[in-house]
Structures are given as C-alpha cells and as structure tokens.
C-alpha cells in the first residue's frame, strides 16, 4: 500500500514537471465565466449564445486565430468565481476572460484577472469601482456602468412629463444605486420609496402602498425571478393604467413569455433593443433567431458585441496577441460595428453610447417585444470616469 502511494506521488511529480504543452502561436484561449446552473442561469446562457454566434460567424476564428473557449460555471457564488479566475489566469493561461454577468461575480474575479495582466471583457456587470478608482487598462466593458440604465429611465420619465413617481427597489446595493441613478436625472416629486427584501416573492404590501399614494407612475427595479411576480401583481391590482409602470431589467425577452399581455405598454430604457434600426442589428437579430429559435435579449447583444470587439481588435494587430499593449490599444479603438450603432470607449474603458426609451409592444405576429421609443440620452458617458486614473 505504502509503496503504491509513493509510486503515485512520483508519477504525479513527474507529470507536474512535464513542460506545459507548447501552444501554437495562432491559438486564442478564452475563458468564459458564467452562471450556468441554478435559477439565475437563463441570462448567462443568453449572453453565451450571443457570444458564440459572434464566434461562429467568423468560422470559430476570432481575429483569424483558432479560438478555444472554455465554459466555466461559477453558479452564483463569488468564492467559486474567485477560484475559477485564479485557475484561468494562473494555470490555464487564457488570453482573454469574458462572460461575467453579475456584479458580485465581477467583483470577486476582477482583481485576480486584471492583476495578472489578462484581458477582461466585461459583458454586463459594471460596478462603480471598476469604472472609477479601480479601473484597469486590461478591462473593457461592452455593456454600461451600473447607474446608467437607471439614469436613462429617470430621464425618460422626466420627458414623459410625469409629476409624481413612486420608487421601489430590491433592498441591496444595486437596488439603492438604481434609485440613486434614477434620481440623478428625474427632477419631479418622489412620493414614496420602498426597499422590499431581495428575493421577496409577494409584493402585495408594497403595491397596496403604491395604490394608496398620489403617484402618477411607478419606477421599479426588482432583482431576479421575483420581478415577474411584481409585474403580474401590479397588473392584478389594476394599477397598469392608473399608474404606468417604468422598470429596469424586469421586462424583456426572457421574462416576456412568462408575463404575456400583462407587460404591454410598460416602459424602460436601454442601450439596445431588438428593433434598433441599423443594418448590423437587423442581421444579428435575424441570425440569432435562426440559430437559437428565441428572441435575443440585451445580454445576447452584449455577448455578441464582445465577440465582435475581440475579433476586430485581433485582426487589427494581425493576430499578435502576445503584445498586450498593442492589443489594449486595438481594443480601445473599438473599431467594430456594434449592434447598438455608435460605440466608442471612454478613458475608463466603458462605452460612450446612446440610451433609448423602450415600451413593450406587439408585433404583427402577436409576439411581444421591446420597442425602441426614441433617443433619450445621446453619447452618454458614466459619471465615474473622472475618478479613473487612466487617461
């Protein structure tokens, strides 16, 4: 028994001492970090599908390099995200990490990845530290800073001439940030502000208070799957007509099938909608629907843009990804056709982009979709860039 253990240990030592398999210079290794199990798995799968569409459209070769993508499930757990990030950059030696959707996962993996001088393409989460004082040249966002969409809704509500509004947000950091973002652009009266617990299922108590208030409209940011409950209960209470519902990240392609007609006429704001009128977006939506048989969401669009961004940058430097500084400079140029139309990088590597008002409508086939109601904020930059030491 003992000799066997000694032998095994020796074999292990030998294997460990083997030189790492030399990698062909024309291979690009991408680590995709996502939440692929549990109830929050739908959105990351959207993002992944969008990204893979971008990869497939160039024949599996981003920037002309043979692309290896490892798909890593970190559940919804920051500690696992940290471990996976360590493994990706220290033992797998990936060139680029992408896919992270949730802010808590981003904060857990961010330092490990950028400190190892590995490129991190943030394809959704944009917590304020990363846009401000903790910004890094190795990080690029293809989405937005977390405050921005909420500020855009605030502006939208303001422009709709709503005098009094009731605010509801899940009681956690992003919820509080969301309402702060909303208030930065909305100048009317706020008649009430409620913070139900994160993950709360039944919102009857909150909705009764909204019904009893003098508000002309409601702005809600309920995180996760209970968002559907809130919207349905809001409609059941007969409030949709009396107090129009504005929301963020609650009513979109993923939740629309569950909500049905209840969602009609609800409003929000976004940097992308499926009917945003530009040629690359029309092509993207058509290709996505053909490949996956469902409507792409904002997350899918951001995943797709991530792949397009990487592809364009690597082409620009002729595949020489070993030169990190050149790759960073090429990414910074963002010389690709975003499905959002205009897209360029700010000094903190977050996009400067337009935001649009949205409303849920029905298309000719009777399917609900997020309709672009027109520009709200043009070339909107986040408010943390000045805190970032990068120039």
């Amino acid at each position, binding site marked *: 028994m003992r000799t066997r253990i000694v032998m095994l240990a020796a074999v292990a030592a030998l294997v460990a001492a083997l030189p790492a398999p030399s990698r062909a210079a024309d291979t690009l290794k991408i680590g995709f970090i996502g939440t692929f199990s549990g*109830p929050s798995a739908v959105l990351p799968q959207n993002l992944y599908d969008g990204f893979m569409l971008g990869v497939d459209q160039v024949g599996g070769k981003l920037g002309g390099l043979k692309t290896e993508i490892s798909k890593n499930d970190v559940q919804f757990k920051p500690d696992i995200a940290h471990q996976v990030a360590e493994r990706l950059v220290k033992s797998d030696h990936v060139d680029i990490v992408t896919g992270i959707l949730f802010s808590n996962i981003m904060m857990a993996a961010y330092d490990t990845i950028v400190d190892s001088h590995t490129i991190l393409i943030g394809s959704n989460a944009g917590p304020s530290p990363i846009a401000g004082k903790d910004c890094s040249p190795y990080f690029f966002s293809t989405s937005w800073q977390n405050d921005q969409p909420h500020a855009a809704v605030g502006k939208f509500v303001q422009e709709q001439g709503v005098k009094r509004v009731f605010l509801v947000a899940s009681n956690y950091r992003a919820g509080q940030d969301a309402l702060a973002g909303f208030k930065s652009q909305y100048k009317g009266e706020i008649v009430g502000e409620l913070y139900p617990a994160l993950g709360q299922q039944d919102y009857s108590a909150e909705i009764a208070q909204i019904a*009893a208030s003098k508000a002309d409209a409601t702005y809600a940011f309920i995180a996760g799957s209970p968002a559907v409950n809130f919207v349905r209960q809001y409609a059941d209470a007969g409030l949709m007509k009396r107090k129009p519902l504005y929301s963020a990240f609650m009513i979109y392609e993923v939740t629309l099938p*569950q909500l049905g007609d209840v969602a009609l006429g609800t409003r929000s704001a976004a940097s992308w909608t499926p009917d945003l009128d530009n040629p690359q977006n029309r092509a993207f939506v058509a290709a996505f629907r053909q490949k996956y048989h469902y409507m792409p969401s904002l997350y899918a669009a951001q995943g797709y843009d991530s792949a397009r961004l990487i592809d364009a940058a690597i082409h620009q430097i002729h595949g020489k990804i070993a030169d990190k500084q050149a790759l960073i400079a090429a990414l910074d140029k963002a010389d690709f056709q975003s499905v959002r139309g205009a897209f360029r990088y700010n000094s903190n590597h977050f996009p400067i982009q337009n935001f649009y008002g949205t409303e849920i409508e029905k298309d000719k086939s009777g399917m609900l979709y997020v309709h672009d109601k027109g520009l709200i904020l043009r070339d909107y930059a986040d408010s943390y860039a000045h805190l970032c030491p990068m120039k």
Partner: protein
Amino acid sequence: MISPALVLVQTLNGVQFGMMLFLFAAGLTLVLGIMNLVNLAHGSIYMIGAFLAATFSAWTGSFILGLLLALPAIFLVAVAVEIIVLRALYQRSHLDQVLATFGIILLLNELVRMIWGSSGLYVAMPGFLAGDVTLFSGILYPTYRLAVIALGLIVAAGLYWVIAWTRLGMLIRAGASNREMVEAIGVDIRLLFTVVFGLGAMLAAFAGGLAGPILSVDTGMGDSVLILALVVIVIGGIGSIRGTFVAALVIGVVDTIGRAFLPGLFALFLSRPFADAIGPACGSMLIYIVMAVVLFFRPQGLFPARNG
C-alpha cells in the same frame, strides 16, 4: 400615509399570506409531530405541486381542474419519496434527516429544472377570479386573494373536522402525543406515516398550486417558504394543526404589517435614508422577534400537541 383603508388592505394581505403559510406548514408540522421527521424537502413538494398544477392547467385549459389533478399526482410522488428515502430515516438522528432531506431538495430542484427548464412557468389567473372586488367606498382588493383566504378557511375547517372527528384524526392526534403507545396498541404505524405524509404533501401542493397565479412558478420557490413555515410550526407548537393555524395568521399579518408600516414609522423620528435602510431590515426581523417572545413565555409553542 397610514390611513384606515390602507391598514385594512394590508391586514387582508397579511391574512392571505397567513393562509398560504398555514396550508404549507400544516403538512410540515404533522410530519414532524407524528413521524418525528425533520423534512426539509417539504418545500420541494410545494414546488413540484406548483409545477404539476401549472402543467395540468395548461393541458386542460382550466385552472381548477389542473389544481385538482395535481393533488393525486403529488400524493403518488410523496408516497414514492416516503417509501424510497424517508423510511430509512425514521430511526436516525435529526441531523441525518436534515442532511438527507436537504439532499432531496437539491436533487428535486435540479430535476424540476431539467424537466421544466429554469425560466419558470406562467399560470394565467382564472378568468372569474381576475380583477378586483370593491370592499367598500372605493377600496379595491384583488378577487383572487380573497378567494385564497376563503379556500384557506375551508381547508382549515376540513382539517379540523378530520382531526377532531374521524378515526384517522384520532390516530394522528394519538401519534402526535405518544407515538410508541400507538404502535404498542397495534396500529399499523407505517401505513399511518405514509398516509400522513401524503396528506401533508397534498396540502403543500395545494398551496403551491394556489400560489401559481400570484407568484412565478420556478425552482427554489419552496426554499423561502420553508424557513417561514419552520417559524410557524415552532410558534404554533409542533404537531398541532390548531397552533399552526393561529401561528400562520400571526406571522402572515405581523410580517406584512411590519414590512408595510415600519419604514414609515421609523421615518417619524429618524432621517429618511436611515429609516429606509433599517425599516425593511427590522420589518423582516419582526417575525423572529415574535418567535423569540413566544418561545420565552411558552417554550412548547402556543398549542403544544400533547395538550391537544
């Protein structure tokens, strides 16, 4: 901001929530009281019940028919779980039972996700229960929630009748008070356990099915209810249906009223941002404070099973 009408509506919300809790917790307290089994998987039964009711409703096109079909189906699921897994656990320690039934939660959650997908199901509100009822002078309340309150009362009355007036109820009461003696008299305790477990599962599935049109039906929906239900059965007294009924109503109303009015109350003497921050936190703490107070004065709960 606090008007009598709003207090009434919020109390109704609390009662409705309490009814759901009662339906869920009734099975849990019976299983723990009579079978001495800590069954964390009760939440999964609730979830599967909701999924079955949603699926059957979609097939038959009738919410009520779907709900009724889900009950025998869940009875079969529950009996299978009882025979395959739980029977091996009755003689084991509570810790083993917690571990095993927690394992069942993980297994069933993932199984449900494999069968129905992770995006959840949508259950349409039955047409005749959609909309609102005018309680009096302009105070609206959703019809469906009133119906839930009524159904909860009917089920509570039915359970009371079964437990107080039938032979099965007699055995259940006896089992809750002194299991060994019931066994010694010669009652087939295995059969009793299976029936009680199935009955509890049907109540949970009924609650799950009723929750469908209000809450989204998705994996993990039972997990949050489970924690509240444990609070309910501890306050009510383990094994006591009457205690569970009272405790569920108390928890439902206290939780709803607390969440609704505490932030406003704090805002009277604290700065607004501070009140907004601690109001919801204290609101969700309130039920645990109630539990602590009840346990301090009555460690056996409000209606311990041994006294009936």
